[in-house]
Structure formats: structure tokens, C-alpha cells
């Protein structure tokens, strides 16, 4: 079994607001982190200076610039823990575990749809940048409204094509991120991250069209490295037997044909 990178302290180099109340945090990470990191993986952050918050907060990797040892995270302040993470001062340090989990795999696909919903769009940036090296990636990102859109320019730069959708029609396609792609030719692979109803729609679409599809899931998480068995999701084996898999260690990316949403 390979050795895991022990928890380490990462310096916050910059922090700025993104759309929708999210914050972009740029952190300095070691070479080993960059070498192990893949799109779809996540980091597990200790809430700074708050020992009463026992559990770490899982945040997907939004982007990575290995040549500068730079990790970019998009964090949505939801509870007190993520609020404290978002209010960190530049120059401060945060204890981090990762990169954790299994990421997306291209498996030789030449055309990819990268579908992201809300905060779930964040890991799609890293996927677009990496997978665009050998595939044509169409990013389709869905948001509630115009103000929630983030990192549009970065997506423009990293994806072959960018489609924006909003639920209220205030920007881009009026509707969801999957419907926004209805006139596009079908890809070799779909990858998706976002709210469960969106993932369900993507799963149904992909299975109906016999397309390879990988979904990134979210669940309330404990350790983050597979020991505590709390971040479960239902999976179906080939013989139709149901199991609980660990989102942290068996996922967070699952084959759409195996996971029960």
C-alpha cells in the first residue's frame, strides 16, 4: 500500500471573493501534493483555531498550478466551520489532509462534457484544464442566477467550449446545465458534480444514451480516508446486490452505472 501524505500546514497566499458568496483561496502546497493530485480529488481542511470543530471540512480541488505549488479552492461558507475557513487572513496557515479520494479518469475519451451545478462547478475547472490536454472538453455550468456564476474567465480559458445556464434565465441558457447541451453532439464521456437532482438527471441521460459517465458525490464526512464508514452512498454491484461505499475513499467519483442516487 502506498504511503499517504501526512497532514500538513498550508500557507494562504491569497483570498478573494468569487460569485455567489463563495471565496477563492490560493494555498501553497508541497511537491508531493501536486504529484498525487488529480481532478475530482479533494482536501480535508481543519477549521483554523477552532478545536471545538472536531471534523475536517472536505473541499474539492478547484485548480492546481504545480509549477508554482499553488492549490486553488472555491469554498462556499455554509456553516460556522466553512465561514471560519473563508475568513482566514492571507499569510495564515491551515492544516490540510490530502489530496484524498479517487478523481475523474479520462480513459482515452476524446470528447467530454464537464457538467457542474452551483458549488459543484468548482472541481470542473481543474478537470477542464487537465483533460483539455488530450480531449475536447465542453463545460456546462448551471447556477441559480447570474450573481452565482464564478470563475467564468478561467473556464473560458481552460475548456474547449463553455456553456452557462441559469435557473432564472438571467444569464446564458434558461434552464439546467444538462438541458443546455441538448443541441450538442454526444461525447465519449460525461463527468458531473453538483446537487443530487442534477446528478440524477445526468445519470439517467447517460445510462439512457449508453455513455460513459462519472459522478462526483457529496456526503456528510468523518475521517476522509476510509476508516470511519460514515460518508456512505449506495452502490449496485453487477449481480444487483446493494452495498454502501465510502464517498471519501471509494469515491468521491463513482461510475454512474454503479451508484444509486
Amino acid at each position, binding site marked *: 500500500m502506498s*504511503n499517504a501524505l501526512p497532514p500538513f500546514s498550508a500557507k494562504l497566499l491569497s483570498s478573494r471573493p468569487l460569485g455567489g458568496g463563495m471565496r477563492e483561496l490560493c494555498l501553497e502546497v508541497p511537491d508531493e501534493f501536486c504529484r498525487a493530485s488529480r481532478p475530482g480529488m479533494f482536501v480535508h481542511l481543519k477549521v483554523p483555531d477552532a478545536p471545538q470543530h472536531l471534523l475536517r471540512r472536505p473541499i474539492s480541488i478547484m485548480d492546481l498550478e504545480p509549477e508554482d505549488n499553488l492549490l486553488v479552492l472555491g469554498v462556499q461558507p455554509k456553516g460556522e466551520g466553512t465561514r471560519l475557513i473563508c475568513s482566514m487572513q492571507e499569510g495564515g496557515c491551515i492544516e490540510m489532509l490530502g489530496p484524498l479520494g479517487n478523481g475523474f479518469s479520462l480513459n482515452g475519451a476524446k470528447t467530454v462534457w464537464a457538467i457542474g451545478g452551483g458549488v459543484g462547478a468548482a472541481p470542473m475547472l481543474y478537470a477542464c484544464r487537465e483533460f483539455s490536454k488530450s480531449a475536447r472538453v465542453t463545460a456546462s455550468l448551471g447556477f441559480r442566477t447570474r450573481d452565482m456564476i464564478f470563475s467564468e474567465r478561467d473556464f473560458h480559458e481552460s475548456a474547449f467550449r463553455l456553456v452557462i445556464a441559469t435557473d432564472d434565465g438571467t444569464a446564458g441558457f434558461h434552464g439546467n446545465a444538462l438541458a443546455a447541451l441538448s443541441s450538442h453532439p454526444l461525447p465519449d464521456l460525461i463527468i458531473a458534480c453538483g446537487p443530487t437532482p442534477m446528478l440524477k438527471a445526468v445519470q439517467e441521460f447517460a445510462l439512457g444514451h449508453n455513455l460513459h459517465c462519472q459522478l462526483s458525490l457529496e456526503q456528510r464526512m468523518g475521517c476522509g480516508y476510509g476508516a*470511519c464508514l460514515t460518508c*456512505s452512498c449506495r452502490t449496485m454491484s453487477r449481480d444487483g446486490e446493494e452495498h454502501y461505499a465510502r464517498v471519501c475513499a471509494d469515491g468521491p467519483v463513482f461510475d454512474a452505472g454503479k451508484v444509486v442516487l
Partner: protein
Amino acid sequence: MKLSVNLCGVELKNPIIPASGTFGFGREFSRYYDISRLGAVATKGITPLPRLGNPPARITETPSGILNAVGLQNPGVDAFIEEELPWLIQQGATVIANVSGNSMDEYAELAEALDSTDIALLEVNVSCPNIHAGGCVFGSDPETIRDVAKAVRAATRKPVLVKLSPNVADITEAAKAAEEGGADGISLINTLTGMAIDLKTRRPVLANVTGGLSGPAVRPVALRMCYQAAQAVSIPVVGMGGIMTGEDAAAFLLAGCTAVQVGTANLSDPMACIRILEELEHYCSQNGIADVNELIGGLIVE
């Protein structure tokens, strides 16, 4: 410095043991450190047959605590013996097999199945708050605890620890019942039954509705119960409940515990047990303690 302790006739390198349910079968932690450095490893709770566990959500954070309801997801005793135990032994771990049954027969069956294996001790969970037998927690009354201890005692030559629930009227009665039933030692506390509500959805946060509370939030209760239990019985006590540092561990030893288990801390930090071991060693050396056994039961009550 001497860190080794003798627990029910088993020599442990040191008194630090990861608690059942927070350490899997050790594989995930072996990617972070050599698990043979630990005093012993208490395995994930094992049942006669594989168990799927509860639906998610299974965990939530509470102030200085964690509420969980995993529901004993495990591969069953046969898979444990065939796949997990040989690996643990190969790593050089001293193995405490934690077992859970739904009836006296199941407890006896588990003890028998493990009797001829290389486990060092058996830890009998009479108190998992997240599965129910006949609508009530199985091990909440002294008579049942005594009967389970007896059934297991008769089925194995291995030393038997009975793991007690704090969700009882009088912890000393539960401790005495385990001793009377023939337990070689007791371990406590399992989690305190608790609950959390999502105010947005007006639903319980955990799918199981209730869950087990652990972490520093329960530590003073755990310490008090370990102290009282150690006073009430003459068999060794293994203490646990929110131990996050070496000094926390030292407090449980002073209260009368022969060894301690570290649970929730493993979920915050994969290195927790090793850090706590090093901190305990540091505490001893700073305080002129040459043998960790000096701490056990060393509490002074004026």
C-alpha cells in the same frame, strides 16, 4: 522509560489503543504509520453475518463532539478471520476483536469462532446504541450484561473485555455485572445516545434519528464513570471518551484505567494515536515518571 502495561494477562507495548469503529481494521492508518507501534488495535465491531449498516447521513458534528450512527457496517466474522486478521497479525498488531451480537447465542458463536485465532483479546460490545434488539438497547440492564459475559466466557479461552454503555442508571452496577459474569476486564464508555435536528428541513440530521455522541464533549462524564467503575470492580478497566491528548490519557490512567482507547481523535487526525502516545511519553518524562504503571489508579482524593 517503561510504557508497557499488562492488560488481562496480555502485555501491551503501551496503553494506547485505537477504539473500535474509528480505526476500521487498521489498513487506512497503516498508510500513515506503523500500526505495530500501538498498544493494541480494537477492530471495527464484528457480527456473525455481514451488515450493511444504516443509510446516510451517518455523522454530524456537535459542539466539541461527534454524533454517529454507522449501524455496525462490517464484513462479518468469517471475512474478518480470513481477510482482515491475517493482515493485522502480519503488521505486528496486538488485536482486540470487538464483537456484537443480537442474542446470547450470537455472542457465544462469535467467541467460539474467534477462540482458535490469533486475536489477543475479545471486546464484547453489549452497548452499541445504533442497533436495536426488541426496541431497547441490548446491554442496558445488569442482568443481560452478566448473561452475555457468562455466555462469552464459556465459549472462549481468550481474555474477555466487556464494553459498557454509559446509557445506564448506575455504571457501577453494569461494571459489577460484567465482573460477576466472568469478564477479565471492562472497557468504557461507549457513546452517549444523542440527537441533532436540521432546522431548515425540520428533520433529524442522522437518518437513524438518534446517534452516539463522542469526543471531548463527553470526556468529563467518561472520566467520572471510569473512576467509579474502577472503584467498583477488581478487574482491569480500559478507559475511553474524548481522549485527544497525552494528558487526557494520563488523566484516565490516574482515574484507575490500565489502558485507554482513542476514538473520535482518529477522525480528526490520522496521526492522533501516535501523537497521543508521544505526548504521554513526554508527560511522563516531564514529571519524573519512569514507569507508566505508576499512573494507573494514582489519583489522590483528599
